[in-house]
């Protein structure tokens, strides 16, 4: 899929996500808007996956470590055909399998249950190690938030991935500069991320996480450095695409009222046209 088409898919995903948050009265819309372009590029451009065979041993793996943005993943999975599109309307409803954090046992296409932060990268290291043991070509991708990188378990995994020379592992940091309670810079400022990852022996690309051409290029196997795990520092905006949410810490898990919903949807529809 070309960047122009990917942008259209991402816009459709944003609109469906916004609608679902509004209707459910909950969600993590800020981080869902920042991660949507990354997920879209992975599922519609980069990854080798088959919705008809979600457990194919040779599939590429995606771990959404920032599991609180599960809704964005659910919409992507529905667009890709892993789950029915109409099921998105059950998000957060009683007994829905689409709860606030992804569940691999219930939802096809989910690789591991996430929610508590700092879990996805260690699991990704195990996946990539398993592929190496088998001499398999499939790749492992992990998306974390930038605030999530404050969890020490991530740095344990970063050390191991370099030691194990996991060039089949790609960590994508959704660097939207905001965490739940405040700006990253005002909490425990990890930026700049690039030199830290490089110091641990990783190959690092730094990109505009909303530029489809840049995302697709950074995800392509041609940019992998042999013997090194890869980190993509994706500079993004929390609330991307919606003017009054963008880069606004208030919108971590705030729910738009009717007026805000209409404005947000109008802005996304205008961008789609």
């Amino acid at each position: 899929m070309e960047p122009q088409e990917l942008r259209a898919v991402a816009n459709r995903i944003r609109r469906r996500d916004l609608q679902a948050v509004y209707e459910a009265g909950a969600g993590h819309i800020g981080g869902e808007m920042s991660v949507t372009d990354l997920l879209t590029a992975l599922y519609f451009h980069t990854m080798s996956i088959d919705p008809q065979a979600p457990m194919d041993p040779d599939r590429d793996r995606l771990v959404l470590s920032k599991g609180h943005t599960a809704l964005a993943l659910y919409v992507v999975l529905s667009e890709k055909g892993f789950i029915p599109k109409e099921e998105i309307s059950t998000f957060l409803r009683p007994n829905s399998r689409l709860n606030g954090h992804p569940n691999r046992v219930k939802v096809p296409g989910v690789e591991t249950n996430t929610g508590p932060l700092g879990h996805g990268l260690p699991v990704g290291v195990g996946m990539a190690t398993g592929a190496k043991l088998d001499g398999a070509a499939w790749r492992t991708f992990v998306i974390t938030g930038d605030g999530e990188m404050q969890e020490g378990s991530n740095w344990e995994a970063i050390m191991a991935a370099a030691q194990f020379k996991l060039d089949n592992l790609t960590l994508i940091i959704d660097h939207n500069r905001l965490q739940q309670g405040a700006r990253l810079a005002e909490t425990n400022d990890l930026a700049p991320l690039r030199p830290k990852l490089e110091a641990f022996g990783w190959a690092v690309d730094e990109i505009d996480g909303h530029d489809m051409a840049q995302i697709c290029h950074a995800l392509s196997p041609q940019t992998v450095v042999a013997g090194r795990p890869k980190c993509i520092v994706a500079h993004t905006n929390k609330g991307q695409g919606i003017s009054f949410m963008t880069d606004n810490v208030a919108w971590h898990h705030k729910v738009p009222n009717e007026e805000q919903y209409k404005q947000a949807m109008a802005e996304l529809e205008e961008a789609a046209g």
Partner: protein
Amino acid sequence: MNMPFETAKLHDCRDAFTAMLEDLAAENHAIVAVCNDSVGSSKLGGFRDKFPQRLINVGIAEQNMVGVGAGLANSGKIPFVCAASPFLTGRALEQIKADVAYSQTNVKLVGISSGMAYGELGPTHHSIEDFAWIRALPNVPVIAPADRIETAAAVKWAAEHDGGCFLRLSRVGVPDLLPEDHVFELGKANILRDGDDVTLIANGVLSHRAMIAASLLEQRGIQARVLNMASVRPIDQDAILTAARDTGAILTCEEHTTFGGLGSAVAEVIVDHHPVPMTRLGVPGVFAHTASANALLDDFGMSPDAIADSAAELLTRKG
């Protein structure tokens, strides 16, 4: 029934664990070992020599270790994740909850040097909360073998079991209790010795102490049944209720705090279905002092003599 047992020769169950793991790994290439700089203390040196690619040492990083195990399971491997039990279970408890139990991954957690095996190193290194922590999680059977034979049988079972589990092993020598051809069955207790007056329920390093205690009780004219209860979750409800009906009194002993472990699990069954007088021996909700594991068990009232005394006292409470 009333199996004879040797007290002369003591075995380190870790040797049985690694010998069986190496045998299984030779046939099943999906088996891998994951450890935290614990090749020596987990006795994985032989595994590393035979299968160097399949020994994954993540360094001193237990949270990552359990996550790596879950990822390996996702890629079709059968990981045995080995570390000193206090750090495996305590340090990585949330990873065990989310990545193993909730995600239903095929990760075999092997807690070595459990209980008070590291007696002299103090309570940071004692693992007397692990039954309670892991028993509270769905999908992860909790298993504490009593001797080298049951250890080997449980490792074989774990490798063939489609799902996670927690094997709790000691490093303190124990005599043989079970027959060489013993097959481990999840959720099934073994009657090591039959009797009608009182039932002693134990596992791990306490089972052989319970057997000695039963011999001492016999000298006093008291016939004690001894149940070896390796499987703490799921627990053998039938064996417990049969023992309650047959003997009318139950004593548990465990190398664990009396909060949430074997005694608690047995008491839950008894209270729900057939209340009888009970005594729960263990570490009574304190941090232990420092001494050898065997001395600590003695100090907490679990010498064979003290177990026998507790059982005799319990009999006075029978209706």
